[in-house]
């Protein structure tokens, strides 16, 4: 039993650190750290740097351009990226649709879709949720009717993250309305430029344009865009949802955020003393710190089990719940650190090139928006209640 990294693992970590020190653009890291807006260009620029290094596709097999890393290496890489303030890689292409194509797609599909995903030349979004199908995803109604060599797709997807920038969307559609819920669903790849598609922005409670509604009005989709068999899309969907995600606990993000929070709390003054000396605030910091240690060790135990060949199953549901609750707790403390200056809402100041005057301390302007935005963590990716249902059923046998 040894909780320390081996010399090889430490050497790998050093390699990652050297890469991040030299290749991560400072202005991008600074935006991440300060919660400022990242543009599409920022994300694409960083992801292309990753690809040049061969470090874009953590979870792909080597023959398709994946890293071939072990679970521990992936873990180290993700931790370090978070620590350095690297933008999170957008998951929709590389970590969502690509593994499905690799597992269920044809040779042609692999050749057509994988290289531009690897090089971030094509931007993907995820078309699963519908107004009537959120947690109960299999209740989706968007229909695809086969007509000769194409499907005709009609319906609506919603909460589509970054759909406004997307070139392609992967969708779950109903191809057999008479079959039982899960059985008549197919997995379709759709070019966003196809006639009949309309994208409408949805503004979230923090004033952001992050999600969209996507409407399909008799959209013609070539049959060769079907992944896997017709009516077997649920298998693809499940594969994608349970797809190994070492980063689900968000330990690196929480560590970086806690570190930043402590810096802030040392600076902010209260009654002539740094806020970090306030007994109540310090107690909550200590609470986050110990919970974060517990999460990190639990995560490492899961990573080590995967390293030993185990398949992380419903255990990752524990990590999702614990990890998201902790990240949300930290945003709450940031809000409290800002005090009365958590109130002003000046979205124009969220841009890194804003050069006007700020209101209140420099960290304070984004904290409330971030706090509200981060409520999403316990809703998407399978809400935390759904995760508890999964554990109750799969692990506890209830």
């Amino acid at each position: 039993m040894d909780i320390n990294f081996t010399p090889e693992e430490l050497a790998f970590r050093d390699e990652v650190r050297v890469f991040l020190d030299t290749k991560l653009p400072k202005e991008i890291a600074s935006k991440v750290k300060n919660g400022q807006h990242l543009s599409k260009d920022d994300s694409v620029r960083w992801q292309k740097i990753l690809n040049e290094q061969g470090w874009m596709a953590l979870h792909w097999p080597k023959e398709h351009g994946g890293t071939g890393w072990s679970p521990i290496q992936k873990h180290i890489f993700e931790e370090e990226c978070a620590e350095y303030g690297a933008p999170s890689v957008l998951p929709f292409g590389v970590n969502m649709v690509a593994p499905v194509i690799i597992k269920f797609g044809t040779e042609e599909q692999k050749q057509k879709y994988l290289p531009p995903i690897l090089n971030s030349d094509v931007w993907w979004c995820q078309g699963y949720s519908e107004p009537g199908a959120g947690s109960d995803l299999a209740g989706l109604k968007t229909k695809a009717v086969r007509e000769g060599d194409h499907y005709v797709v009609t319906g609506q997807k919603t909460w589509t993250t970054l759909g406004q920038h997307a070139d392609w969307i992967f969708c779950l559609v109903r191809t057999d309305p008479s079959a039982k819920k899960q059985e008549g669903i197919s997995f379709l790849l759709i070019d966003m430029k196809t006639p009949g598609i309309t994208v409408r922005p949805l503004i979230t409670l923090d004033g952001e344009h992050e999600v969209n509604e996507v409407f399909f009005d008799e959209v013609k989709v070539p049959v060769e865009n079907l992944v896997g068999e017709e009516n077997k899309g649920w298998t693809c969907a499940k594969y994608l949802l349970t797809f190994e995600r070492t980063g689900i606990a968000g330990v690196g993000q929480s560590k970086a955020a806690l570190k930043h929070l402590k810096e802030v709390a040392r600076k902010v003054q209260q009654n002539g003393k740094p806020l970090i000396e306030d007994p109540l605030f310090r107690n909550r910091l200590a609470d986050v710190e110990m919970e974060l240690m517990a999460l990190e060790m639990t995560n490492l135990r899961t990573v080590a089990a995967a390293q030993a060949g185990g398949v992380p199953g419903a255990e990752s549901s524990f990590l999702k719940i614990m990890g998201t609750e902790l990240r949300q707790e930290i945003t709450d403390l940031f809000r409290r650190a800002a005090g009365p200056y958590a109130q002003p809402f000046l979205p124009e100041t969220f841009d890194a090139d804003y050069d006007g005057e700020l209101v209140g301390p420099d960290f304070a302007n984004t904290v409330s928006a971030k706090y509200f935005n981060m409520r999403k963590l316990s809703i998407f990716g399978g809400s935390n209640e759904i995760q508890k249902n999964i554990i109750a059923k799969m692990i506890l046998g209830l």
Partner: protein
Amino acid sequence: MDFKLSDEQRMLEETVGRLVRDGYPFDVREKARTSELGYSAEMWQQFAELGLLGVPFSEDFGGFNGGGPELMVVAEGFGRGLVLEPYLATVVLSGTLINSLGSDAQKEKLISAIVGGELRLALAAYEPEGRYDHTHVAATAEKSGDGYSLTGKKAVVLHGDSADQLVVIARTGGNGTDRDGLSAFIVDANADGVSRRGYETIDGLRAAEITFNGAAAELLGEEGKAIDALEASLALGIVALCAEATGAMEVACDQTLAYIKERQQFGVAIGKFQALQHRMVEMRMELEKARSMTIFAACSLDAPAQVCAKRLAAAKAIIGKSGRKVAEEAIQLHGGMGMMEETAVAHYAKRIVLIDHQLGDLGYHMQQLESLLDVDDDAA
């Protein structure tokens, strides 16, 4: 990074597991608990025969040379069985302190006797006014002939009622909460000038209030310099308590899960109700956290002093917080049965909650953690 037990550790785990399974059914434990001694002297001999009393000591004394992970394995198994015997008091707290401070002659005599099951000890460190602060020591010892004469009061000394000898912390210098000037002594528990008021604790163990009035004491180690060794022994104690709690929490979760699958109300097993399912999931989540922190603590004893202190404080605090949740929910999900003395889970709940009152509670350890907030810990 590797969380697997070594072959030796796994054998130790199996030994303790078998002992607890075969030798510690609930009714047998109840008989021992309500006996005059409060535990089973025969069981103690079995511990000796199986080599368990030598886990942290060197092979020279017939020991196992174990560290944090080995103690964790043993204590977790004991937690599963709610073991009553004075292992923590004798081996983990007093024994390791003698091992750190004692002369070769003292060790030869005392450690060998511990390992052989012939000597039961208790650590008399904390005082009535000191709560969880082990540096708050008002008891004093003065030179007297070849030895020392010890005077003072010690509070809730775990297994102090039945111990043969006591390891006592007293001042030979300094005052208040000074770290310098603390010395460790061996005192015969039945000597003149020692009076003990023994009692049962609410979780079924035994303890004593002990008053020393000019009792003859034998110094362990250098005068006034016991603090580091004392803290090292308390650290081992914290690892053992975390592990014991984890073992007990595991059983409390298992028993509760079994109960809600079996108990029928409203025509179905109550485990069908989502309100209970989610709470059961939360119990398991707390258990996972407790287990993670126990491993973390057990593997951190050799880390730099402040890093080790920070991790141990966090571990014991998590145990306090998670333990309370598991214990309360275990009772609640058992309904009226959870309130009954005849229900095993109630005893698990009591031990889990009372572990928070030994070697520092949630509040105490969070304060420690707060004082170490700036210590950088690059965990792995």
